[in-house]
């Protein structure tokens, strides 16, 4: 029987993200686990919308995300700990890059899809299937042109489905209301960027 050991979560909660990243880089497994607990669930969920189905056939989503996060954390040279949202956006970008790699590879694969122009794009993710690859591309491109704080507000609230409290915490905003205003403005800016992209 597994005698369950309680872990000191309270101490983890007060660790700053900066500390955790620094400790994780030196190989502190507790710190890495805390980072996992903090970011993996939302990243996994998020990735499941971004990953084409066949990718999930090839590789377990959890493994992909976890592996990418392990590598990404180790690769951080100097984490400017403005706020937590920055790390989330960084990790999201790492996962998106990894997904793009996988999709890119698949598109070059010598599978029968090359024979058929009408076949559904093998790289289409659930989100792309839902709103179209072009709109997704437009969205991603416009998102990249936003200011970091705007981008982080959208990633935290819209993509990761965080509460306004989460957004406030991630962006270092004084209140949930302030976070709500930040998300709203960022969304409008994003829509304007997207329509510019279209024009």
């Amino acid at each position, binding site marked *: 029987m597994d005698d*369950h050991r309680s872990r000191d979560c309270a101490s983890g909660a007060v660790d700053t993200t900066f500390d955790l990243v620094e400790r994780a880089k030196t190989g502190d497994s507790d710190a890495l686990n805390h980072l996992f607990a903090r970011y993996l669930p939302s990243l996994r969920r998020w990735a*499941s919308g971004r990953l084409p*189905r066949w990718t999930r056939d090839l590789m377990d989503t959890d493994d992909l995300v976890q592996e990418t996060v392990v590598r990404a954390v180790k690769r951080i040279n100097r984490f400017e700990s403005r706020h937590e949202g920055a790390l989330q956006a960084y990790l999201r970008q790492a996962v998106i890059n990894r997904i793009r790699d996988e999709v890119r590879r698949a598109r070059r694969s010598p599978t029968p899809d090359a024979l058929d122009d009408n076949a559904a794009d093998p790289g289409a993710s659930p989100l792309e299937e839902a709103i179209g690859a072009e709109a997704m591309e437009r*969205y991603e491109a416009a998102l990249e042109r936003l200011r970091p704080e705007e981008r982080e507000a959208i990633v935290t609230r819209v993509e990761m*489905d965080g509460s306004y409290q989460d957004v406030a915490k991630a962006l270092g905003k004084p209140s949930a209301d302030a976070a*709500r205003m930040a998300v709203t403005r960022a969304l409008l800016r994003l829509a*304007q960027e997207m329509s510019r992209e279209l024009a």
Partner: protein
Amino acid sequence: MSSRNASALLALAESIADGAPVDWDAAEAGASRDEQAVVRQLRVLSSLASLHRSIAADLNVAAPPRRPAASPAIGSWAHLKLIERLGGGAFGDVYRAWDADLERDVALKLLRTDAASENINASRIANEGRLLARVRHANVVCVHGVAVHDERVGLWMELLRGATLEQQLAAHGSFSAREATLVGIDLCGALAAIHAAGLIHRDVKAQNVMREAGGRIVLMDLGTGREADGRGLRAVPELAGTPLYLAPEIFLGAPASARTDLYSLGVLLYHLVTGSFPVRAATMDELEAAHAAGARVRLRDARADLPAGFVRVVDCAIAADPSARFETAGAFEAALVESLGESAAVPAAALPPTPQTAEQRSSPVRIWARGGLIAASIAVLIVVAFVGWPALRRLGSRYASGSGIPAGAVRSIAVLPLANLSGDPAEEYFADGITDELIGTLGRLGGVNVISRTSTMQFKGSPKTVPEIARALNVDAVLEGSVRMLGAAAPGGSAGARRVRVNARLIYAGTDMPLWDRAFEATASDVLTLNDQVAKAIGDAIHARLASSQTARPAQDFDAFDLYLKGRYHWNARTEEGLKRSVQYFQEAIDRRSDFALAYAGLADAYSLLGYYGFVPGPESRARAAAAATRALQLDDTVAEAHGSLAVLHYYRYELDDAEREYRRALELKPGYATAHQWFGYELAQRGRTAEAIEEMRKAIELDPLSVGVNGGYGAVLIYARQFDEAIAQLAKTAQMDPAFARTHTELAKAYLMKGARDRAVEEAQRAAALGVRDVLVHAQIAYVNAAAGRRSDAQRQLREILDRYRQGDTAAAMAAAVAYTALGDRDQAFEWLERARQISDPEVTGVKMDPQFDPLRSDPRYAKLLAAIGMAQ
């Protein structure tokens, strides 16, 4: 944009942020022409936001940490907060619970506190958890743990969100053959994993299979599972499993087996496409009677429009005679895969409505005759592309079929350090060890170079892309992946029962495309078999044959092997502490298994290096290394590393022919052994066989392109061969790789001196001096450059320091003094110190034959005598 309009747009954005509904048509109609474009994009963002929310709601992943606050707990058990009751049965209740430690939702099966049945149920749930924890497979529910708390037994596992196949059947009607086939393929994988763990599921049915929102098929409820070994297999007292799914022999008293599980799976597929069962009955008596009478409804009769291939597979799976069924889950799966290809090629839509026999239906020729060749082949292509290919693609990844590269396209492979996914840096040694073992195993691939660890380790955690790495290492393919230990070792118990999972991708550098991408899993004690599987998969993909293993392995003793890996991990650090710790680990491994040849080979390597770096006095280290290498070879004559160690020991004793024999044997056993090529090459160069030496060094560089030792060694060999321009180029390249390795600079200085470029030589010598290393031979080389450049007083001061070092017991200083005296033109002293170095068996003495810095001694009669004494008579 006016402020009124701006605030209208902001209000829309606010609704998106809040997730509030918006009448988009009205919003668009009310907007000005300029704003309409923005409103349309806001609408896109609105759908994106709601899609993200629905993914969050659909998928079985832990909610963000705010979840427990939002959902008040209805109770708690151990570290879990009970959020809602999902259901229950006679034995207990199932809850959705919040795991505060790992911040995720879990499903908790909690035993009812019923004193009368406590023992049975407690053991039943614990048994379920224990059995399930042994199985890790994407299509089997993942059990997190079992514990007793407050006298209640609880089993917590991943929370699945979706519908069971039975619910789906009820909600949407019968499955298509293709859908059922894909479900069947996944479940064959699940059963293969269960059977491989020595278990039998015994209750495969539509109610026990969940299809998650993302489409993942998960086999649940192994509660009735029993271990397949041992007694008590007889299915009494209970007829575990739902009777309609049970194989006929169970009713005759036969034990449940892997084949009865496969029978149940066959019934499940039958059920999915028909909603019915092959053998039907209302009571147990009727059921037994129906089986006894062989009364069954054939699948074809239950549903006429099914593809023949599918019907054939299901009929085979549910044959009354067990020997007529599939023997293994793998065989079942292969048949399903094959049927998928057939059914894809014969789409139901392309069939004419007239009745046909199954044989006619499965014949493509018939289709061509009826529909016209061109139309039919287009239909086939489209169907394969649309329907067949996702399945084929996945299967391609499983079976590495059709890798799509010609034989011979891959002649070299780099195995990048497998990432340690345990989350515990203390297990880094294990991932590294598995990487090393894999590199070793791949050495058995015929005609394929496998890059050595020193070169590949430099890419650990590297942000470089695969093509960049492939270019740096000059390889055709790269293997990358991760290692994860599943489950925890029992306290004080063996880690051998834990499971190891290796996820690996073999990527062809030419196209940056994976040839395959697979997960390999085995118990830890079987980890070497797992390595063989990975190696075999690589061999298949690149059309290379994997020679069978010659090296005897520790018989199933994972703990000894684990100690060996720890030893190698520390050995690779090449530091004094690392080498000494490696000695301890190798020794512990030997204490566990006194017949563990590899551990003796490791011990020999460790003592060799301890002596080489001067951390242990030469004679002592050599004696210990010799004893360990000899013992390793007594136990197993095929351990290449032990032959390599022995070669070095012969070389120390100036038994150069014996050394050569051992090197050749080591390389015959392990052609990809870069270090042996390197040492052998160096020895050949010292003996004057420079052409052979260069060939060996080039091979070493091919295998270990980024090793400073190998590259610098090649530079030294080129100096012996008096190819000074080439030596300078090679050594300059080596210095760039690692400017902090002093010997590269002194060798470079020597090469410059030979070319007459004194200033450059002094510059390099100063670089070496600035590094402040203890290596006395580096000091000797600096003295040599100073003397040759006319800075005699510097050289003399350095000579005095070298002599002090000798008096302090540094035996390597004898050879260093000989070098310095030679440089200063004192032949008598030079010969005297060479003789001292020879007497203490300093192998560096063998350099006198070819090293140009000893040219001034060659005309002296004492020179020939010295060469004869070290086995190098001219």
